[in-house]
C-alpha cells in the first residue's frame, strides 16, 4: 500500500475499493463518512468474497457429505483460521457470534448456566457476595449483560470511574478488584472518548485475585494491532461490521482451557455430543458455542476484511488514524465553544472525537453536518452512564477509518462553524 506524506495511507487508492464513498447525499453533496465507529463501510473485496461463496460453494457447513458441503465447511474453517491469526489466536479458540453484543452475552449466560450446574463449573459460578467489575465508560453491550447476570445470580456489580480527562480512574483498583471479584469486563478502546485502556495492567491485578477478564475490543481490533496473548486477558470480543466486514458476524475469543470448561449458551443443532429426549451432551469448542446453521458467508467475508487490513498493515492503519486524530484534536478543539469529551492528546487514544458545541444540541449539530454531506453520530452512543458522568445528555461524534483524510476533517470543522452561524451562536472573530 502506497503511503503519502505524514505517515498517512494512500486514501485515494483505498477509497476506490469502497463503492459507497462515491455517492452523494442531500442534493448532490459528496459523502464524508465519519461514522465508522458505528459501522464501517465495506470494500469490494469483502462483498465479492461473500458473493463468491453464495454463488459457488453455498451449503450448510458441518452437516453434509457432498462436495458443496465440503467446500462450504472448508471456506468457513479457513475463514476461522484467518480471523484467529489476525488477533494472534488459535483457530479452535475463535467462536463466531452475530456481533459483539452476543459474544458478551454468551459469556454472561454461560456463567449463569454454571450457577445452576455442578461443582465442575465452579470457576464460572457466581452468587451473592461475588462481584463483577466494569467501568463507567462501557458501551451498553458490555454493561447491561453484567447487570443482568448480577440480577440473576445475586452477585454485585461494581465499576471503575473515569477521570475528567476521560481516562480510567485506577486509583481504587486494589479495593475494587479483590478476592470477591469473579470477572472484570472492560473496553479496550472507548467508543466515545477514544481512550485506549491499560488492559494489561488491569488484567494483571484481576488475575492476581483469581478473577477472569473480558475485553470489549469492538473499537480496537478494527483500528490497532491486537494480539490476544500480549494482552494477557481471558476473553476478547469484537464485531465484523466495524472492521470492513459484513454485518451479522462477531467473534468471541477465549483461552482454550476456559472454552473447554465453559457450559454452552445457545443450544440446538451442531453443538451437541449426543441427544436423547431427556438429556444431551456437548461438542468440544468452538462448535459447542455455535448452535444452528452458522453465518458461513459472513465468516468468509470477515476473513476477506482481515486480509484487506493485513495487506495495508495494522501498524500502518494505526499510524494513519493517529495522524488523523492529532489533526482533528487540534482543529476541532480549537473552535470557540467546542468541548472535546475525552483525552486532549492523541497518545493511547483512538480515532474517535466526541464533542459538544455550546448553545447547540448535538442533534442540531448533526443535522447541519448532514446537510453538508458530513455523516456523524449524535446521541449517547450507547454509553449513557458515561455521558451522565460528564454532565451531558449527548455528544456529536466523528470517527475515522482507513478511507478518511485530513480533507474530511476540514469538512467537519467547516460544518461545525456553519452550525454555529446557523443557530446564531457563532463566536465573534
Amino acid at each position, binding site marked *: 500500500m502506497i503511503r503519502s506524506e505524514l505517515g498517512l495511507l494512500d486514501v485515494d487508492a483505498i477509497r476506490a475499493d469502497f463503492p459507497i464513498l462515491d455517492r452523494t447525499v*442531500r*442534493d448532490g453533496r459528496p459523502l464524508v463518512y465519519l461514522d465508522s465507529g458505528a459501522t464501517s463501510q465495506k470494500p469490494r473485496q469483502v462483498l465479492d468474497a461473500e458473493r463468491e461463496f453464495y454463488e459457488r460453494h453455498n451449503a450448510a457447513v458441518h452437516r453434509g457429505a457432498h462436495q458443496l458441503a465440503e467446500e462450504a465447511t472448508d471456506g468457513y474453517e479457513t475463514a476461522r483460521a484467518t480471523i484467529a491469526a489476525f488477533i494472534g489466536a488459535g483457530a479452535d479458540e475463535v467462536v463466531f457470534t452475530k456481533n459483539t453484543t452476543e459474544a458478551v452475552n454468551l459469556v454472561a449466560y454461560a456463567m449463569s448456566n454454571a450457577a445452576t450446574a455442578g461443582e465442575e463449573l465452579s470457576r464460572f459460578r457466581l452468587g451473592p457476595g461475588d462481584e463483577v467489575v466494569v467501568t463507567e465508560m462501557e458501551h451498553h453491550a458490555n454493561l447491561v449483560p453484567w447487570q443482568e447476570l448480577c440480577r440473576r445470580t445475586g452477585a454485585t456489580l461494581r465499576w471503575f470511574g473515569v477521570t475528567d480527562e476521560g481516562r480510567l480512574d485506577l486509583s481504587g483498583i486494589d479495593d475494587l478488584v479483590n478476592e470477591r471479584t469473579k470477572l472484570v469486563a472492560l473496553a479496550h478502546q472507548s467508543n466515545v472518548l477514544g481512550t485506549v485502556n491499560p488492559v494489561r495492567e488491569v488484567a494483571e491485578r484481576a488475575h492476581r485475585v483469581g478473577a477472569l477478564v473480558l475485553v470489549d475490543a469492538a473499537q480496537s481490533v478494527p483500528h490497532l494491532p491486537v494480539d490476544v496473548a500480549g494482552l494477557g486477558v481471558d476473553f476478547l470480543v469484537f464485531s465484523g461490521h466495524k472492521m470492513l466486514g459484513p454485518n451479522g458476524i462477531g467473534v468471541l475469543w477465549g483461552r482454550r482451557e476456559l472454552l473447554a470448561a465453559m457450559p454452552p449458551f445457545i443450544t440446538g443443532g451442531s453443538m451437541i455430543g449426543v441427544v436423547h429426549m431427556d438429556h444431551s451432551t456437548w461438542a468440544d469448542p468452538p462448535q459447542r458455542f455455535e448452535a444452528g446453521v452458522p453465518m458461513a458467508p459472513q465468516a468468509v467475508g470477515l476473513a476477506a476484511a482481515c486480509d484487506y487490513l493485513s495487506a495495508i498493515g495494522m501498524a500502518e492503519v494505526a499510524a494513519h488514524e493517529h495522524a488523523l486524530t492529532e489533526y482533528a484534536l487540534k482543529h476541532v478543539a480549537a473552535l470557540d465553544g467546542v468541548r472535546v469529551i475525552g483525552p486532549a492528546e492523541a497518545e493511547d487514544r483512538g480515532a474517535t472525537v466526541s464533542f459538544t458545541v455550546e448553545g447547540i*444540541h*448535538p*442533534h*442540531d449539530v448533526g*443535522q*447541519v453536518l448532514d*446537510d453538508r454531506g458530513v455523516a456523524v453520530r*449524535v*446521541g*449517547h452512543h450507547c454509553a*449513557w452512564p458515561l*455521558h451522565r458522568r460528564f454532565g451531558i*445528555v*449527548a455528544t456529536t461524534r466523528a470517527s475515522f477509518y482507513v478511507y478518511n483524510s485530513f480533507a474530511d476533517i476540514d469538512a467537519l470543522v467547516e460544518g461545525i462553524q456553519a452550525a454555529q452561524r*446557523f*443557530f446564531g451562536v457563532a463566536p465573534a472573530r
Partner: protein
Amino acid sequence: MQLETMYQEIILDHYRNPHNKGLRDPYNAESHHINPTCGDEVTLRVTLAPEGDALDGSATVKDVSYDSLGCSISQASASVLTDLLIGKSVDEGMRVLDEFTALMQSKGHGEPDEDVLEDAVAFAGVSKYPARIKCALLAWMAWKDATAKSLATEKEGAS
C-alpha cells in the same frame, strides 16, 4: 441547502423563546418521557377543568407546563403544543395530536390542515427526517400520557 425546510423560522422562534416552559402548580398529572436514542427528556404537567360533573373528554385543558432538555425540534414542539392545546377540550386536543402525528409520519408528503395545526404546520419539513420525528413527538406523547393519567386518577377517585 435544505436546512430551512426543517428549521422553519417559526420553529427557531419557539426554540429561542419557548412558551409555557417551567413546571407550574397545581396539576392533575405529570409524565416524564425520554427519547432512548439521544437521552432527551421532557417532564410535562397537565391541569384539566371538568365541563360537567365528571372529568372526561369534554374537560378543558386548563394548563400545560413542562421542563425539558433537548434539541431545537423537541423544544419548539413542546412550546407549540402548549399554545395549541391550552384552552381546548381534551377531545379537541386529541384530534390535534392525531393530526400532528399523521403529519409527522407523512415522510414529507403531508398536507397539514392549518386550521387545526396552526404554528405546528411548520413541522411538515421534519417529517422528511425519520430520525427527528421522535424529537417532534416527544412532548406530544408526554401530553397524551399525562392526560390519560389525569382522567384515570379522577376515575379511581370517583369509584
